[in-house]
């Protein structure tokens, strides 16, 4: 399940949706808006997403992770719009029988989502400037 929303992400509610009596391990990742990037002070971030392809590509990523690291449940939510320092921008949760698959699937999902989903981030700096962030990992991805 992958979702795009402009509302605050309720991480606890998302986690409850992963409940599974066979699950012994749960791993989650959250991307938080931080106050600094590449040495520049950041005041807030603006996220733009193209939802139809975020959903389509996100489903592929979840399916790939399931094949590599068989998990029981996984979900992902990405927020859009204007976010402040400390806000939750992306949430990924994975529940599995044992912890190894939970960690590995969660890591795979967030790594791929960041490289493949049509989502863009504009940083608004403390000095009044702003700029779109280019994906640090795209070059590495292209070379695979």
């Amino acid at each position, binding site marked *: 399940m992958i979702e795009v929303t402009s509302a605050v992400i309720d991480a606890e509610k998302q986690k409850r949706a992963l409940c599974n009596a066979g699950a012994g391990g749960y791993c989650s990742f959250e991307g938080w808006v931080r106050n600094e990037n590449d040495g520049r002070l950041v005041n807030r971030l603006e996220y733009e997403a193209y939802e139809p392809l975020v959903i389509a590509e996100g489903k592929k990523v979840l399916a790939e992770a399931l094949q590599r690291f068989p998990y029981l449940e996984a979900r992902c939510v990405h927020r859009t719009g204007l976010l402040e320092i400390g806000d939750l921008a992306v949430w990924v949760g994975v529940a599995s029988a044992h912890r190894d698959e939970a960690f590995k699937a969660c890591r795979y999902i967030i790594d791929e989502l960041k490289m493949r989903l*049509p989502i*863009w*981030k504009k940083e608004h700096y403390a000095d009044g400037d702003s700029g779109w962030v280019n994906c640090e990992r795209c070059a590495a991805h292209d070379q695979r």
Partner: protein
Amino acid sequence: MSGSEKTILVRYFAMFREHAGVGEETLSLNAATAKDVFEQTRLRHGSKEPNGHCKVAINDEMADWSSPVEDGDTVLLFPPVAGG
């Protein structure tokens, strides 16, 4: 490149939208591939972004730069992504 003019709806996202000054525009282009569309819009808007880290979709399907475009297609131009 095909010699015939095609009507293409081009949609711009994020940085590309700001460069173009519009979110989308319908263009008559002499274009055979997604790459042709990208380069002609780049000329049109004076953008210098190479296509290396950019992505393209045709009619809501992720595509390659070499994918053919047809009359009536919608081409989505995605600048480098930065989710999360």
